[in-house]
């Protein structure tokens, strides 16, 4: 019997000004990345509440990535600096609880970095796929 190839579900939060535009640029340049990466547009990476990340895992995501402007380039001047601290603390805590490090990531992608966006998503999807399904932060009720 053939086993279905496991494909991780990835939620990508992208800031409107840099990373979402970077994702658009990846599209313009037809740079492929896995279809299991789904993007949610937020005004700024600092809009991403840890609750959203946990929610995604609860609902079946296998990896969550947050993309924002490069430090210093934030449209709102300081949003991504807060993101950087919040996520450093949060990811460290998830690691402390024994949740795999490779399931979460923060990446800075500018509006000009379509190639970086695609490469990042390919790499992230690969790393998450290597971990297999998210078992440590899953909610069985939400499984099909």
């Amino acid at each position, binding site marked *: 019997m053939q086993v279905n190839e496991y494909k991780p579900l990835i939620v990508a939060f992208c800031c409107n000004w840099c990373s979402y535009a970077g994702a658009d640029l990846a599209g313009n340049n037809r740079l492929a990345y896995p279809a299991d990466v789904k993007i949610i547009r937020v005004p700024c990476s600092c809009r991403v509440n840890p609750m959203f990340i946990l929610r995604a895992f609860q*609902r*079946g995501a296998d990896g969550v990535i947050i993309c924002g402007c490069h430090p210093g380039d934030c449209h709102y001047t300081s949003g991504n600096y807060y993101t950087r601290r919040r996520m450093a603390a949060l990811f460290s805590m998830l690691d402390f609880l024994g949740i795999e490090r490779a399931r979460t990531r923060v990446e800075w992608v500018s509006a000009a970095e379509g190639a970086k966006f695609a490469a990042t998503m390919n790499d992230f999807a690969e790393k998450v796929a290597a971990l297999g399904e998210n078992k440590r932060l899953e*909610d069985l*009720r*939400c499984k*099909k």
Partner: protein
Amino acid sequence: MLKCSLDKLQALFAKIAENAKLYLPIDNSDGTASYGEWSEGTAWSNALNTTKSPKDFFFPQTEDLMKFKTEGKNIEVIDVRRECEDFVIFGVRACDVKSFDILDRVFLTEPRDSYYAMKRAHGIIVSVACQKPAETCFCGTFGIDATEPAGDVTAWKSEDALYLRANTEKGSALLDKLADLLEEGSDEAVTAQKEKTKKILDKLPLKELTTDAFGGGKTKELFDDPAWDALSATCLGCGTCTFVCPTCQCYDIKDFNTGNGVVRYRCWDSCMYSEFTRMAHGNNRLTQKERFRQRFMHKLVYFPENNDGMFSCVGCGRCLAKCPISMNIVKVMKKIGGNKGE
């Protein structure tokens, strides 16, 4: 009276576990005990009581009631009730056994709660008499004899043997299955054991606590007692007392949207919470004082009023041990009503 030598205890457990799941108090690493499923080698805890009461077996903290699924404009309702298997709860103390009577009053009178009833029908309770009551114990206040617990089977533990007596048909059936490991025993050891325990029960610091001031019909007298203010002044409004209480039975029903359908479940709720029984018009009890009063008035006045004088406290002492601010029913009983100044 039947008897099983203590060195055959594990064999006894194994025998029980052949036919039904067996749950018993197990020691935790932090000095507390909690109910867990027996598997080979699992030791029975000596602890007086578990932190969480065994009400979980019949009325778990969360319990799925049903599921819905929407497909287009149609709703499909899925019954999640399943016939459950027999199970044995071993080592239940007198107070906790009594708590089941109280829960039965709530869940088994019409309209019967089918979820509770199902589990209750399949649960076999093996109680065990207390030998080392704690300072927080006051089951005597509610007429419970710690040395003579009810249940399907009652057990007494002596130096070398466990004495067993079936009280119900379910109990007899259980003991019949264990016949190979049991022998006839005399009452003497048990009587001696009881006498010894009674001496300690007589020394308990809360021995004098009475329910004289409480019971049905006392609402008017006690409701506006000025002492409620001071008693409730520092209550945090957490649910610790209700969640460790063997008799608290309030629950909330909630829907959880899984994305693939909705699970309707119930979970324990606490009258100490500000959201408790919130309705369209808002909350009934607006201050912590009113919520605090509700909990104790319910246990000591309203419940007996509706249940032939049965108090809905069994004196297990869990809330005395666990309340973060050490406020509890005993302090309430001493300040409210006739016990004042005692």
